[in-house]
């Protein structure tokens, strides 16, 4: 079977315009939907790609439901800007956000700039990635509320972890300053 790459922008189009959870679609289906959606995105495909889609669709035609969705997508796409990349940017910016990540970030201002940049920022982005991946798997109201609570607590715990790490670092530096040179060098490598 041929492998077809689907770009992030295309995933956004499919997800946002058709309201289909990503895990319910294979890359081939996603691409086929996009291709069926009209000339708007065909301009983004190379002739070889178009030929491939044609072959795939001849072998495995889309279901009526998928075709209906594709037509819906076509109408939606036409209402967007003519530049698909810009439209994708706009859709991504308008993607439903519960505002929580912005709220979580506020906790980081309890930290010094260095701790915020070195410790909080990368750890926070990892946690945000976990949150977004988990949120996509649960659709019920209570599951979402529970996730919000859990991830808020995780953020608070992370800020405390950053404070602790920063304090340990400061304490370590203070202790090392008091020690004689060679001993300090020897000990520094084990902290």
């Amino acid at each position, binding site marked *: 079977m041929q492998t077809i790459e689907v770009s992030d922008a295309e*995933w956004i189009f499919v997800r946002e315009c058709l309201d289909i959870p990503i895990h319910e679609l294979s890359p081939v289906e996603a691409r086929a939907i996009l291709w069926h959606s009209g000339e708007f995105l065909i301009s983004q495909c190379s002739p070889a790609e178009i030929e491939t889609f044609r072959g795939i669709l001849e072998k495995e035609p889309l279901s009526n439901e998928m075709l209906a969705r594709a037509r819906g997508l076509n109408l939606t796409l036409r209402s967007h800007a003519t530049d698909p990349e810009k439209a994708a940017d706009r859709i991504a910016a308008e993607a439903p956000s519960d505002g929580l990540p912005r709220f979580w970030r506020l906790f980081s201002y309890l930290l010094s700039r260095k701790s915020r940049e*070195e410790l909080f*920022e990368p*750890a926070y982005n990892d946690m*945000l990635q976990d949150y977004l991946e988990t949120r996509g798997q649960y659709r019920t109201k209570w599951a979402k509320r529970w996730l919000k609570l859990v991830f808020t607590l995780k953020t608070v715990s*992370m800020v405390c972890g950053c404070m602790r790490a920063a304090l340990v670092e400061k304490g370590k530096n203070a202790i090392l300053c008091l020690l004689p040179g060679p001993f300090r060098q020897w000990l520094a490598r084990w902290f």
Partner: protein
Amino acid sequence: MPLPDLTHLQFLVLSILLDGEQAGRDVRQKLEDEGESKSGPAFYQMMARLEEAGSVEGWYDEKVIDGQRIKERRYRITGAGEAARQEVWEFYRHHFRRKKLSGKLGTA
């Protein structure tokens, strides 16, 4: 032979990064698989120290997840990092060999 400058955790991280550039969360996951669990801030503090020492290079990459753009910290090992790791590797190999040899002589 002088004592190595790397801790065992730093050595492990550099060994993981020998496979090529990786996301911080993947490196952390691999450390966890090796039985070295670390909190996010503690892990990134260690990575910041390795960056300061010039052993690794870190940067942010953009990713789109569930329609939202997020940044991901990625790392790659530098030449200095590879050299430091190799030095530690030689140190332990040297001492293990000596230990093995003296053990054999002791039993003989």
